[in-house]
């Protein structure tokens, strides 16, 4: 095993340059080190001006997604060792405008997330004094998988459609809409359908399937979108064939 590895890191300093460049650093490799530890080594020991995001270092805050050797991953959960002998190329997530170095702008996603109404919608709210809504473990299991999304944006980065058609609402936001649709406490499916049945909603998806491949939390956003398509189609036919039926 080699003691060091070359990390080729994308640099972009908007005040100084119009195009990104790659900069190489020699970084020691330790068995416990993740890609993020390598970046921290660079920042603390070699070049304090390298910019990237991270927080929890335990794969749950969703800050540290980057492209490593072309693949979107959580850098705090990817061993350096697994990519030896290198070089290891680290770039910002594809699909987002680059603010600086390894930092992408995710404002677009934040807007889309809000648009799909990712919260419980009810005709009538039960007063808190009357206690919890009952929900059996089976009903919980119905949406649990889609509630595991950490908003890490790896799926957006893997999605070619999002790059070609920036209006596409995208995997995670749709999965989260589906999370609430499938929640037994929720009554907002119709409202969400209004947003998602538009062209840039679920129909933008042509099922590349890579989003589910890269998702670190097994959310399976591609599955969520396909299920949504099925229910949207069923809804459509119902409303055509039985126009007297409300909803």
């Amino acid at each position: 095993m080699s003691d060091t590895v070359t990390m080729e890191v994308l640099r972009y300093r908007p005040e100084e340059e119009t195009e990104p460049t790659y900069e190489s650093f020699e970084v020691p490799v330790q068995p416990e080190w993740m890609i993020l530890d390598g970046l921290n080594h660079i920042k603390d020991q070699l070049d304090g001006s390298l910019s990237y995001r991270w927080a929890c270092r335990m794969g749950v805050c969703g800050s540290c997604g980057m492209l490593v050797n072309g693949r979107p991953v959580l850098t705090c959960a990817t061993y350096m060792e697994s990519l030896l002998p290198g070089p290891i190329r680290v770039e910002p997530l594809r699909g987002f405008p680059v603010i600086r170095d390894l930092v992408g702008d995710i404002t677009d996603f934040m807007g889309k997330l809000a648009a799909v109404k990712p919260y419980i919608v009810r005709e009538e709210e039960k007063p808190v004094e009357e206690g919890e809504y009952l929900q059996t473990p089976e009903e919980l299991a119905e949406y649990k998988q889609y509630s595991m999304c950490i908003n890490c944006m790896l799926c957006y980065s893997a999605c070619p459609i999002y790059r070609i058609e920036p209006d596409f609402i995208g995997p995670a936001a749709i999965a989260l809409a589906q999370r609430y649709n499938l929640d037994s406490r929720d009554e907002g499916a119709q409202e969400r359908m209004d947003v998602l049945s538009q062209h840039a909603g679920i129909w933008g998806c042509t099922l590349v399937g890579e989003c589910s491949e890269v998702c670190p939390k097994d959310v399976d956003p591609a599955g969520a979108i396909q299920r949504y398509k099925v229910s949207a189609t069923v809804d459509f036919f119902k409303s055509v064939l039985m126009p007297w039926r409300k909803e």
Partner: protein
Amino acid sequence: MNPDYRPYHPKWFRRRVPIFWWLRQAAYVKFISRELTCLLVAYVAILLLVFVAAVDRGEASYLALVGWLSQPMVVAFHVAVLLGTLFHTVTWLNLAPMALVVKVGGRRVPARAILLGHYFAWVACTIAVAWALVGP
């Protein structure tokens, strides 16, 4: 110095999407192939219609069509078409479990079972069509 930079305003870098973006990763190549081979499926459907029409118009036109179909170049082309449609069918069927959530007795039917069901249906249809065309 970046002449376009103004203090306190973001100067994002946006990567352009290259035309051949889909060549960069095996999964994307597969995806594009799946999408493109759907044209072949359409072609086969049309061919089937042409075939039926020819039969309908009488023996002469039927023989003419068979004659054209038997040319070596055309046979080679159709072998390629067959491979393409097979690829399309398989990749397409493999996606089915993603969209379909079937419940039996409160439990989700495993993806494998759904997949097998689809393949079974496919084989059954093929046999039915072959039987109709070739005759008993």
